[in-house]
């Protein structure tokens, strides 16, 4: 059999090496960023810093963690993540349930109503103009309302719920349960793996949100964390230091912006990096269940 031939052995070794290199490639940019963020001005400027910090000091981290705008943006992002994730799941579950419910008249039309926007979109500009004309410019509303309807989720939930045997809901109805109870007490536990996976993906997407902030938010106090970060990073590329609120006055210690930038980047990804290994099994399970079902 060919399974234990020399060629196979070479391939296996090659494979392990390839994946090791791959894993290193993923890790290296982070390690470099960590090194730069902890190193001193001289070392960074003269290109000595590669994988290890030189003359490590945490000044930039302290700077960032005590920066008012950073802290506010962190609060904004946390608030929006929680609120938006909660809302998008509830709204999608409710809509999915109704769309598949025999007792809802006109659900065929509603189905078309929900699906059409998936294929036809007005585009960036009409969306921008609409939000602005709804007087949502520079409000939290602009960061919540347009973001909490997810047609894909609605369709997926509808299909999952429709796949649940009717006996389950019928016996609950006989016991006098209302639709709300049926959905959240009986159906939700059945489709929980997929819902959990969606909760995780949504939360992460909202955590990373910066685009709507860029379009609609003017007040620095309403910035999301990623948008705050983007401003900080872009100030180097576009030399926009004059209007950059995070460009501090001349310091006692000479500062290399790159170290500060890397510190900022790492601070913003710290929560996700810590949390995601634990969430792994939930979203993988959810994807697998979803893949098998449809």
């Amino acid at each position: 059999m060919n399974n234990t031939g020399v060629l196979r052995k070479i391939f296996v070794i090659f494979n392990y090496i390839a994946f090791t290199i791959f894993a290193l490639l993923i890790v290296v940019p982070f390690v470099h960023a960590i090194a730069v963020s902890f190193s001193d001005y001289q070392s960074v400027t003269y290109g000595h810093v590669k994988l290890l910090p030189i003359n490590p000091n945490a000044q930039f981290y302290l700077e960032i963690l005590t920066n008012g705008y950073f802290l506010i943006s962190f609060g904004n992002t946390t608030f929006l993540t929680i609120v938006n994730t909660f809302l998008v799941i509830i709204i999608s579950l409710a809509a999915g349930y109704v769309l598949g419910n025999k007792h809802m008249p006109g659900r065929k039309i509603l189905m078309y109503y929900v699906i059409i926007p998936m294929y036809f979109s007005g585009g960036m500009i009409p969306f921008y103009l609409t939000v602005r004309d709804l007087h949502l410019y520079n409000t939290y509303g602009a960061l919540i309302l347009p973001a909490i309807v997810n047609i894909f989720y609605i369709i997926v939930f509808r299909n999952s719920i429709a796949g649940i045997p009717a006996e389950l809901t019928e016996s609950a109805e006989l016991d006098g349960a209302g639709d709300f109870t049926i959905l959240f007490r009986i159906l939700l536990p059945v489709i929980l793996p997929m819902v959990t996976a969606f909760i995780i993906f949504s939360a992460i997407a909202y955590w990373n949100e910066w685009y709507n902030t860029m379009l609609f938010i003017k007040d620095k106090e309403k910035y999301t964390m990623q948008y705050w970060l983007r401003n900080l990073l872009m100030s180097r590329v576009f030399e926009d230091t004059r209007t950059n609120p995070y460009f501090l006055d001349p310091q006692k210690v000479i500062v290399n912006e790159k170290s500060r930038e890397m510190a900022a980047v790492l601070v913003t990804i710290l929560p996700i990096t810590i949390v995601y290994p634990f969430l792994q099994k939930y979203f993988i399970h959810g994807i697998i269940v979803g893949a098998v079902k449809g």
Partner: protein
Amino acid sequence: MDIAIKNSKKRKKVTKRVIGLSLMIAPAVVLLFLFSYIPLYGIIVSFKDYNTYVGILKSPWVGLKHYIYFLTDPTFYKVLKNTLIISFYDIIFGFTAPIVFALLANEIMNKSFKRVVQTISYLPNFLSWVVVAGLMRQLLDPSIQGMVNSVLVNTFGIEPIYFLGIKKLFVPMAVIIDIWKNVGFSAILYFATIAGISPSLYEAASVDGAGRLRQTWHITLPGMASIIVLLFLLRISSIFSVGFDRIFNMQNPMVYDTSEVISTYVYHIGIQQAQHSLTTAIGFAQSVLGFTLLIFTNKLSKKVSGLGLY
């Protein structure tokens, strides 16, 4: 009991229920109306010379003026060309990478090694492009402060390369970094598919003397065929919509020539330069094209594999 009373009680129950259900779906309906349907109406802006001060209704009609404009605009064609080029390489490399990744990972027998590599590979997917572009910009910094160039200069004595600042390098970098970010996570779906293939098929093949390679070719790949085709179709139907996020965070003015795609172009001249009507026209054309592509590729898929999106 009167049938009339029974019926009216029933009707009250039914109506109450319908009201309840309607309330449950109301938020979705309202939100879709506000943020999907009203903007659809906004498409008429492309047939007018939109003036912010006068509003949509009072702006003058100009018919197809903006459509003709961009269809005859060389700048637009450059942007279109960039979009298609990036999509093309995205499909050749970016689409196939997770498949290869999954197939090769399938040959890793050591479970802990596999799990560690997979866990590591998922992380970049969860980071925003702001972060990824920031990390890459530092790593690939044109001075020796970036690690790659530091190694190139100090160890190999080569001149530093401005990876993200040279026009010709932008596309390869955009594609490679996208793979870096997504390959691990995108492979999950393929892992699930592979895991769903019946082991008895492999056993039977093994008994017939087929080695791993042949088994992969005759069993694993065909087992993945339907999902590959489906995902491939979805990819094809979105060739005009190269993601805004990735390009926008990675580009800088030096490389606009090769990096400007339709989505970023629309942002730059539509929002920053307030050319609302023109960019709405472009956006609408893009939407129609994308939809047509989707219908077409779906029909194609049904013919080829009997599988479609709907």
